């Protein structure tokens, strides 16, 4: 499984044709196919290419919605 640092993850911001990846709980998910992550933005609040572990605690949904998408790697320390 591919390993991403936070700096590497930032490349996958969903813009200009790049995939939309986000990290949660140490896993990196590919949300490129999600209607709700078009253009790498989600609900006016979140951007792809980021670790959303903390942000998801405030979200009106749990990790179960992320789990519908493929895991493409894991997030590691810089």
């Amino acid at each position, binding site marked *: 499984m591919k390993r991403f640092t936070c700096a590497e993850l930032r490349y996958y911001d969903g813009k200009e044709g790049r995939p939309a990846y986000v990290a949660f709980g140490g896993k990196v998910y590919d949300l490129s196919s999600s209607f*709700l992550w078009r253009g790498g933005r989600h*609900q006016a609040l979140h951007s792809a290419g980021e670790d959303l572990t903390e942000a998801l605690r405030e979200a009106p949904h749990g990790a179960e919605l992320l789990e519908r998408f493929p895991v493409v790697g894991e997030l590691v320390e810089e």
Partner: protein
Amino acid sequence: MARVAREMVEKTGINVDQLVELLVKNAAAELTTYYYYTILRCNLIGLDGETIKEIAEVARIEDRNHFEALVPRIYELGGSLPKDMKAFHDISGCPPAYLPAKIETVEDILKVLVEAERCAVRQYTYICNLTAGKDHRTYDLALSILHEEIEHESWFSESLGEGPSGHFMRRGETSPFVSKFLK
């Protein structure tokens, strides 16, 4: 724009541009749901489908009412709707409630309906959390819509056999909570 009304919200620390974007996304979700529910309702046929059709119709009309109720608040806060309907569709806060490619039972349509309502419940819960105690007018609007979305979810959830919710189908006028914003 209602300048002072916007200033009052800004003073609470809410990012008003972000809030307006959320309201526009939800207005898009409501109007597109109204459209997609039209197709879903048309396909609720047969003995099982007919039992759901009237409920789906009430949810469809109430979702259109939610769109109508949201629009003034968007403009009061200095926002606007996109001029391009296609762009409006694509920024929706909820995925399109497409007619399933293959319909074997009414449950296939009910699953689309309940998922759409669950998305709406999440959306308005979030807006209520964001605005509670700060932006009273948006909170009141989002809470009123939330009341109706939760009832919609309950109707479809019960029809899917997920258990009782204590709700009954709408009696009397549609949008009992949101109608005060439509007068």
